[in-house]
């Protein structure tokens, strides 16, 4: 083999590996879309999964409330502190309310709220479904003529798609409220100016943008976390790996989708 041929081999191998990884990821994306679409198509099939949907909504929504409230409060508080420090340099402290509200509604609420849901609820969805696979409970459901896609996946996807926007709305309200407390009570910004600037600067367009993001993120988290659990290798190690991957993929997915949606709503 010539010298150039020998040098080329590792490069070729690298691109070969890269290509295979890309194809594998594409295949996985197709499989996830197909599985999610299949599960969603079962929404019209009997028996209705209302009870299971409510149970999941409760577990996801109510169970995540405290962490969302804490994250929202501290995000609003630190935004007010940082915003005041910056705005004071330009003598524009009155804009603090608008700055905090816009940052939270447009960006930090949806993204941080989604991250909190992924960490608290998304990982547990993946692990729970994965363990059901390891212990053959999904097979048992199939043999009892209960479709696991309808019983396990569908309620979780729908519950996440609904719970995340609601949680993010709560995050926004608490964040803005906490920002007000720090800005007005601690830093002595004029309360009238704080609220008036916020009302004047925050438009419905900003709220729709944040709202759209939270719906898309919720749906995406549900799809990714259920898929990773359902397709996890039915071993202890496989479930652990799937749970980690679900958190990483969903988090990165949220950031990528956030950029795409922001570029649309800017």
């Amino acid at each position, binding site marked *: 083999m010539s010298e150039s041929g020998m040098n080329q081999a590792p490069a070729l191998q690298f691109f070969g590996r890269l290509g295979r990884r890309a194809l594998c990821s594409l295949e996985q994306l197709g499989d996830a879309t197909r599985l999610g679409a299949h599960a969603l198509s079962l929404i019209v099939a009997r028996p209705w999964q209302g009870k299971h949907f409510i149970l999941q909504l409760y577990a996801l929504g109510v169970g995540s409330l405290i962490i969302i409230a804490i994250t929202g409060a501290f995000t609003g508080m630190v935004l007010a502190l940082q915003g005041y420090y910056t705005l004071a340099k330009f003598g524009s402290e009155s804009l603090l309310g608008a700055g905090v509200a816009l940052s939270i509604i447009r960006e930090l609420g949806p993204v941080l709220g989604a991250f909190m849901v992924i960490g608290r609820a998304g990982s547990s969805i993946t692990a729970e479904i994965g363990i059901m696979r390891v212990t053959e409970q999904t*097979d048992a459901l*199939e*043999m*009892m*003529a209960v479709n696991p896609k309808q019983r396990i996946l569908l309620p979780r996807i729908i519950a996440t798609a609904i719970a995340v926007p609601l949680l993010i709305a709560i995050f926004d309200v608490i964040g803005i409220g906490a920002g007000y407390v720090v800005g007005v009570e601690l830093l002595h910004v004029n309360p009238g100016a704080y609220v008036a600037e916020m009302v004047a600067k925050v438009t419905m367009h900003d709220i729709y943008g944040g709202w759209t993001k939270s719906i898309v993120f919720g749906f995406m988290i549900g799809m990714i976390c259920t898929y990773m659990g359902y397709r996890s290798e039915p071993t202890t190690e496989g479930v652990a790996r799937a749970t980690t991957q679900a958190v990483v993929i969903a988090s990165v997915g949220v950031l990528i989708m956030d950029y795409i949606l922001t570029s649309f709503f800017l």
Partner: protein
Amino acid sequence: MIRGENLSKRYGDMQALAPTNIQIREKAITAIMGGSGSGKTTLLRLLSGLEKPSTGHVWFGDEDIAAIPESRLYELREQMGMLFQYSALLNSLNVYDNIAFPLHEHTELDEEVISTIVTMKLEQVGLRGFEELMPSELSGGMAKRVAFARAMSMDPKVVFFDEPTSGLDPISSGVITTLIKDTSDKNHMTSLVVTHDVHAGLSIADHVILLWQGTIIAKGSADDIRNSNDERVQQFLEGRPDGPIPFSRSTTTYLDDITHKPGTVRLEP
């Protein structure tokens, strides 16, 4: 009632089941026996529709369950029951709810009637009074008995048993074996038992199928199998380590491996 035609299964490069024709006798107990990795569980999963075959058909009556729509497969499964190797109880439900689960899902029966059926099934498996226990509070033998009761709750026509006695003490094993035999006979069920427990398999089966390396090597009544002249069958029945069925799965020689002969050693540096 169930028939596999030219049935085979591959997982990547591995042939788990070679093309096989198999007929499961109606209202009788068929035992599929063989060593670990012989393809028993693969065959069971194919016949129950849990796996799609790589080639061939699985006929349930006159319908190919490998090709019918998912919704129809679920309809047919209302006539089936399955006892899983590790019980597969739904761990969020207690014993009562596990057994009542198929009844809640597929019948319009009053809770009072369901409660009576659950009590009857629990009495049958000797666990009446344990309704409130969660699966995590049960021993392996108890979990298997609850899973048995759940598999029987809809009085299915066909029941699949995947290693029903594995991991059980001799008494629990005997209880499960007797339950399978009695229930199958009384209810005229078609039972398919996958097991490597020679004693249990031969004592209850009307028909025995012996697998080795994904291929059927013997079939017939328990006596036919006991009296078979096939050395492989006799080695399996007697549990002899030496014979035509090798214990070692290695493809290279032991001497080559321990002397680190080039091309044979696969240890990581």
